[in-house]
């Protein structure tokens, strides 16, 4: 069978300890929470940390609290807990739903919110064993020089495959990052970069310490996920749609502000500002939805490195954005 390589496993009790351990380990270190992403990757030698630092023993990363009418969620909360807790579900149904759509119940029991937000980008040239990758002479994300998805490209095109991240961006969540040089709070979208290798903007020793969700009122959001099997596949397309209603709810109010964020089509969750802009001022009429769907379809640039044919995936952007907005409209009525 496929074996894990040997490594040192550290269990810090505080954030400061964890950061110091990572600074000591340098490039050989890696944080782990649930391990559902890292350990399979280590078995396949996609990631080869010599020092694995578990965040699961750090109390402050595992809690929940209400703050300023919004919720603050620790990154080590499991995806199961996030999707099950009734009060959270009521306040943030789109987040809970996205968490519930990740993988299988078994993996959600282990996998965490932070793990899904920092999920390694995926590519079916990369998510393979060492021996398989050797047969194509490796790729630039690990051990090689070329991106097989786009051989003339200077960068890696591995795909952001998080279900929760697009929703966090769409609803305007913020992340608190704590690192060796102190801490900072950034809008969710700022954590990501459109590069399959350097897909996170955080310093390697920075830890995602809090996920801060906005107060759950005056807006609505949905998340739709496209994949082959609804039982456990990663998304080949995720659509997070958020609208802030301008006037009183239920009276045919118009959209004050809207955001559409796509998952599975780039190396980062991709916001499509033009799609959001076309919706502002509208009442989500069929025409407005069609225009937004078209705007979202244009920049979506899936490549041949996930399940399904890439041209079909691009076509589906339109279909899924439309369905997401129709669902929001339906709920407003």
């Amino acid at each position, binding site marked *: 069978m496929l074996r894990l390589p*040997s490594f040192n496993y550290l269990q810090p009790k505080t954030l400061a300890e964890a950061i110091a351990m990572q600074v000591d380990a340098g490039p050989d270190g890696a944080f782990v929470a649930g391990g559902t992403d890292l350990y399979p990757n280590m078995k396949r030698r996609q990631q080869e940390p010599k020092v694995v630092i578990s965040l699961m023993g750090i109390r402050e990363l595992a809690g929940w609290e209400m703050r300023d009418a919004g919720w603050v969620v620790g990154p080590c909360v499991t995806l199961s807990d996030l999707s099950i807790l009734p009060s959270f579900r009521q306040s943030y149904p789109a987040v809970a739903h996205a968490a519930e759509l990740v993988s299988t119940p078994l993996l959600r029991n282990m996998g965490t919110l932070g793990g899904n937000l920092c999920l390694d980008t995926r590519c079916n040239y990369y*998510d393979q064993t060492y021996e*398989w990758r050797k047969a*194509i002479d490796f790729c630039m994300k690990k051990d090689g020089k070329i991106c097989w998805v786009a051989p003339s490209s200077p960068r890696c095109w591995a795909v952001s495959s998080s279900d929760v991240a697009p929703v966090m961006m769409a609803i305007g969540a913020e992340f608190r990052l704590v690192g060796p040089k102190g801490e900072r709070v950034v809008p969710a979208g700022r954590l990501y970069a459109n590069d399959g290798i350097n897909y996170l903007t955080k310093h390697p020793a920075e830890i995602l310490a809090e996920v801060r969700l906005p107060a759950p009122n005056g807006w609505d959001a949905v998340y739709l996920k496209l994949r082959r*099997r609804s039982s456990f*596949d990663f998304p080949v397309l995720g659509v997070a749609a958020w609208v802030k209603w301008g006037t009183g709810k239920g009276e045919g109010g118009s959209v004050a502000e809207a955001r559409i964020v796509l998952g599975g089509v780039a190396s980062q969750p991709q916001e499509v500002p033009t799609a959001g802009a076309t919706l502002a001022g509208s009442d989500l009429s069929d025409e407005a939805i069609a225009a937004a769907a078209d705007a979202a379809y244009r920049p979506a640039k899936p490549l041949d490195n996930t399940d399904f044919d890439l*041209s*079909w995936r691009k076509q589906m952007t339109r*279909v899924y954005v439309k369905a997401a907005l129709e669902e929001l409209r339906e709920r407003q009525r």
Partner: protein
Amino acid sequence: MAGARDSLRVVGKALRKVDATAKVVGATKFADDVALPRMLYAKLLRSPHPHARILRIDTSRAVALAGVKAVLTGKDLPIPFGILPVSQDEHALALDKVRFVGDPVAAVAAGSEETATAALELIDVTYEALRPVTDAADAVAHPEPRIHDYGDGGNLHKLIDLEFGDVAEGFAEADLVREDLLFFEGSTHLPMEQHAAVADWSPPPDGKLTLWSSTQTPHYVHRALAKVLELSPAKIRVIATPNGGGFGGKSDPFSHEIVVAKLAMLTGRPVKITLTREEVFYCHRGRHPTLMWVKTGVKKDGAITAMHFKSLLDGGGYGSYGVASTYYTGALQTVTYHVPRYKFQGARAFTNKPPCGPKRGHGTPQPRFALEVHIDKIAEQLGMDPAELRLKHLVPPNSLTANWLRIGSMGLGPCIHKVVEGSGWKEKFRKLPPGKGIGLACSSYITGAGLAIYWNPMPHSGVQLKCDRGGGVTVFCGSTEIGQGSDSILAMIVAEVLGVDPFDIAIVTGDTDLTPVDLGSYSSRVTLMTGNAAIQAAERARDIIASHAARKLALPAERLAFAERRVFDVENPARGLTFAEAVQLAEAAEGTVGTVGSYTPPPSPGRYRGAGVGPSPAYSYSACVAEVDVDPATGIVRVPRIFIAHDVGRSINAATVMGQIEGSVYMGLGEALMEEMAYRGNRNVVHKIPSLLEYKSPTTLEMCDVVTYVVEDPDPNGPFGAKECGQGPLLPVPPAVANAVYDAVGVRIDEVPITPEKVFKALRRKAKGEAARYGPTAFPDIVWPEPTRVPPPWEGGDGKAAEGSGGRAKTVKVPV
């Protein structure tokens, strides 16, 4: 041989499997659970090239690694092997050439799996890359460089041309002649248990090898080990551990089995190997990707006047069962609807991919898909209901087909009636709202191949039976439990004959030291063949016991019945003995009570070259109706429900029959909708997705509801009338889904899997006024051999080829 239904006490009941408790509580010892003292672990180094010559292998750095006990390369095992005598083209480790990414090249035994893995990195292999052949069409177009230096020319492994009657004449008589091109994608078995094997060697003077392996065919593994290791078969014991699923993927002798045996012999220590999931993809032997062309002439009422069928199989890098698979793509077209004249041309190509072989349905799901979609189109052109068309032209029972297959019982008619009525077919077909559809397809499958893999006049299955004086019975049989329930079938059949409880019976199977030969768990042969052998052994034991019980009871033996663990007077049931007492009487009089039974299939009437594939003691029949929902915006197809009726002859265990039918539907649904052995032809022909995550197969959530009808039309050749049910019900599922998609949205998807992309493209074509179809567009030109002409039975033939026709393929003819 069999009693009337109402007299059966065990057969036909829904009983738990005899091995169910052990499986449920985790007590079953699979091959990977075998652990022996001082055991070493083996790993295989596999080729990173699809097609290359091996120039040099340097193992010195690996040998020097601490913990490494032995390193093997091809030179250590130079004798070739292969499942079929005509394709002995495999080596345990590549000798001078590699033929696919994943082909084993070297092996290491070490104290731990980690050390063995590390040692693989230290083996230096120098390759000279050769042009790879990426698929069957590429093989036809590029005869050079050849993958093998044998076959029917260039990169074509096998060419077949058989003609039963003058098809041109038949087409001339037809009112409608239709041609279709279809493609069936390759898929793999996906057993839950990865292949594993453990070898143990007792050094001379014993010189005895024991191999535990997750294999469906311990007898064939036994033969391959003897050949390659140059050991006497008497010095080899193969134990087939319970397989965690097989589906045909564990029916070949494999590299890893031979390698652990050799490593055990070299090191004097037990050696284990457990393959990774990725390696299981490389073992493969799954469904051949098959391109098919079919032309059929029909009268206005749907009566077929002639059929011409061509298939081109993508075989992968080795022969495996491929010659048989190729024949199977042309063998069973004739057993469902009467085909008076029939021509079949089949070709198998070598390509630089893991070898294809037998997967559930072996070579027949592909042509069945083609045929059933083709007939659906013909029915539409004739303006006939496709169910009516089929019902009108069924092959009669107890008849011969154009290609000389002997049909016994034939329950397809009742099967069609069941699914038509159950599904509300008449109210739904062509009447459902847009996006909803219903489709029908039928099929047939063999209940055991009529011939063994290697020619021999001996039985295909043997059973030994021992009666214990305590009332227990032990049944010894070479059959292999792969989850299909074969151990339970033996217990139930023997229990029926001897009137004891099936759970009183000990079953010893799949051990070449302990059990008489059974050829293996393939071709849906086990229930029929081991069942008949078991009946014979049990009846012989019953006769012995009855004669002594009769003497004691002062009754004629004919008046004795065996039931409820008793032997008693049928006219006065109170008068009798316990079964144990009766056995004791027999043992006292005659010594140990032990009997044997065996089974040999009846000879086939076909006597032409190629007549060996297709004959079977009995054919099972299935009819299937699929309901689909197609989303026109996405092309996504969902199958909410499938109705399936299967003519099983007679159920031995009603619960496992149901399980096998539902399991077949499940596997067929995966092939219909998503499964795909995909390779990257432009990227060194690597397997695109060798993992359980990315190789898409349905999970429980994707599984449809199944409404099953078991049709019982007992076959005289089956034990108690039983026929197969483990493979046949898969066959009609893909074409039923394809026909239902057409009913739903009016587009023909002439290939499986029917993915959303294909439906979406076909819908776009339809919207643009183009052909509302997705599928292959051409069949490559192949230089076929001179046909073997065999007059069908109704043209006065005797099952032999006409003088001077056919014979061997022209091995020198290479299409350029």
